[in-house]
């Protein structure tokens, strides 16, 4: 493969901390190879800012292979940028053209306050899991793994929901900043498995209550979440969540 280099402008949201006023700042980045990853382009920008005595752009990232869910950039109006089923860290520069201006913002949602620049606080997701996103089984309580056969289709569907990486792109994509796709993925994962059955009702009620408490918006079935999800979590999970919620609400008394 031959390498092409390009010169770009990046227009980045800069904000010193949660309380400071933020603004866009535009930087030139030159000599970017199309074989680079998007974050490597950001590394080059930061390296230059540091050597020039400036303040590098803060952004979350860790595994750089699309699985930890840490990276979270809103690129040219889309969470994780232009590629389908992709995280920011997996985006590569061949997605862009020489001379282009790339606009980079943080996840925008009241429930994800900005820490600095492109870094946001997603601890609301942990608290939603704390409300019931688990199966209550202490270490040592388990029976033999094969004593409970699970229909392959259910196991596969549970896995497809469990693939959620908790990045929050669904929230960032939603005009109401709803966390329904995230929540429904966890509820589906556990509701589809027999191990999850005993806590099925309390789980969905408690998790939804916590989501509301965190200030996430309502779901209007627009589907922007599904379209942007790097793991292609299906919106059908939201339908399942609604069914679970309704069933649990009606029988809770």
């Amino acid at each position, binding site marked *: 493969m031959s390498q092409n280099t390009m010169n770009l402008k990046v227009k980045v949201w800069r904000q010193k901390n949660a309380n400071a006023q933020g603004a866009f700042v535009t930087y030139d980045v030159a000599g970017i190879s199309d074989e680079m990853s998007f974050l490597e382009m950001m590394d080059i920008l930061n390296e230059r800012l*540091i050597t020039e005595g400036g303040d590098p752009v803060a952004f979350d990232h860790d*595994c750089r292979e*699309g699985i930890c869910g*840490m990276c979270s950039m809103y690129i040219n109006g889309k969470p994780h940028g232009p590629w389908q089923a992709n995280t920011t860290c997996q985006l*590569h520069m061949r997605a862009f053209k020489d001379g282009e201006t790339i606009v980079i913002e943080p996840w925008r949602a009241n429930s994800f306050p900005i820490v600095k620049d492109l870094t946001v606080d997603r601890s609301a997701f942990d608290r939603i899991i704390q409300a019931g996103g688990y199966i209550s*089984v202490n270490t040592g309580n388990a*029976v033999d793994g094969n004593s409970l*056969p699970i229909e392959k289709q259910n196991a596969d569907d549970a896995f497809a929901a469990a693939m959620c990486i908790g990045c929050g792109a669904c929230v960032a994509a939603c005009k109401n900043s709803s966390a329904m796709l995230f929540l429904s993925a966890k509820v589906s994962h556990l509701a589809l498995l027999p191990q999850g059955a005993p806590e099925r009702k309390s789980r969905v009620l408690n998790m939804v209550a916590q989501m509301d408490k965190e200030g996430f918006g309502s779901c209007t079935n627009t589907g922007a979440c599904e379209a942007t999800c790097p793991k292609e979590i299906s919106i059908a999970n939201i339908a399942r969540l609604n069914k679970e919620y309704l069933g649990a609400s009606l029988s809770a008394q």
Partner: protein
Amino acid sequence: MLDAKIPSGNLDDKWVDYKGHCKLVNPANKRKMEVIIVGTGLAGASAAASMAELGYKVKAFCFQDSPRRAHSIAAQGGINAAKNYQNDGDSIFRLFYDTIKGGDYRSREANVHRLAEVSANIIDQCVAQGVPFAREYGGLLSNRSFGGTQVQRTFYAAGQTGQQLLIGAYQALERQVALGNVTMHTRHEMLDIVKIDGKAKGIIARNLITGELEKHFGHAVLICSGGYGNVYYLSTNAMGSNVTAAWKAHKQGAYFANPCFTQIHPTCIPVSGDHQSKLTLMSESLRNDGRIWVPKNLGETRKANDIPEVDRDYFLERRYPAFGNLVPRDVASRAAKERCDANYGVGTSKQAVYLDYAAAIERYGKIEVSKQRLSNTSDEQIIAMGKEVVKEKYGNLFNMYAKITGENPYEVPMRIYPAVHYTMGGLWVDYELQTTVPGLYALGEANFSEHGANRLGASALMQGLADGYFVAPYTVGNNLADEIYNAAIPTTHPAFEEAAKKVAERIASLKNINGKQSAESFHKRLGKIIWNECGMSRNEAGLKQAIADVQALKKEFWSDLRIPGEINEYNPELDKANRVADFIELGELMCVDALAREESCGGHFREEYQTPEGEALRDDENFMYVAAWENKGAHEWQLHKEALKYEVIKPSQRNYK
């Protein structure tokens, strides 16, 4: 000689006897005992959940924004367990034997046997938590094979096994957070161990958002902070993975064992240029079905698909017919390097070999044809069906490859090359996972224990969870039983004050260097030194040069580092500088260890010591020991040896032919 405190008795009975006789802490006392856990990957999260379930007050720390991000999440292929669900002759003994042999006879028999014993419990526990392992149509768990074994004992969830296991442990942990049994400190980094009367009694942690230093007391401290592969800069580790917690423990008296035992994984996406920030693994599970080859002829110019069978050299199958493409990682990596060094490499860099799926796609296509009872299927239909099967098994890996390289691996063979992946070395621990500092433990990749000189695939997840779910809850409890007489120590104690002051001074001195170069640029240079001289092959002259180079780099780092921003704010560059400073010191120790070990074994290949066929040549007479290094000040370490006694297995030259 170091004493690992291995229980007496038959190998099969040691762990059972230990559990039957270890000291217990009654429930009322457990509630008074505080346990600090640093790192929340598989080892840390499973330990935190399990200890909290028992009733201990747990404080857990991670540098990421959530425990779910820990790098265990990136593990792809699977987790081993001696379940013998396939009826193919697996047993606890065989898993034990494979692990010892895979580790090139440099691990401790008693620990490895215990690991094999609890392996089956791990699968059961994870299934109960709702981990969606791959299943067969009958609803039962599916298995595949990994390197260094001839049975199918690997449980998996597509190419995301680590993710699913970590989410299981994370959920168990968050459940304990909700119950108030765990206090979770995210975006915190441990920067020192606090010792009182020689025992670990707490930590100093930096709140990465505010920059504030916090003092935390614990009756015991568990280091579960993972491995140090990022010392090479380029590795398959996450960007934030670091040695800092383990290194601080080392500086406080914990011996560091076998630091030169590092694992170079054979199947990674090759480096594409100087801009590269990390390398991406292509799971070992791909070697189940993929075939590795290079052109047979020097100067081959045809594209991969145009090279006929007769002109391909399936070098692993040629050299190791019994294990073929599934030889252990160290063997496969060296074989690939050998071909590339001999100029048979492929791709623009010529530092790559092919991993080919064409044969597997055809084979799976034919199986589908019989399964679906089709007749008159065309070759294209067979290939299309085969691709679907491969997609189900490895889809996410193939996608990842396509995104990074821009090539379609369903159509053309993947190009792969070895890359740093795992570190077998780590903090020295005894049978109870306790370091040489009383009250200080190390679990998972952070310790040195189970994998000897080379880890077998799908064994890291097994070890992390074994330590956290099933070992530490017993062994830490055994020692906490003696702590019930000691009340919690307030963090106003002078030892805490002094430790915090030292950490603050170090941060200030880093910040005040006010030089010109970034932490990242030093890290890159360190990585090059270590990769070139202490990577896939090592020799005396190179290692001596590397030690001098690392020492010079350390000087330059401490005189020309630039950290932008302030100390008391969110400052990722400051965090990085702290970590790089520790990596530099560790890099020197790795070379010291590699130089002292005048033999080749597992991942440690000294060019001076090889068989005529180019295989690793061990020296059991002189080096059958664990090298545990005690820090004696700047650039000074003292070697302590733990003799390895093989009572059940007779060490021999590893043979995968």
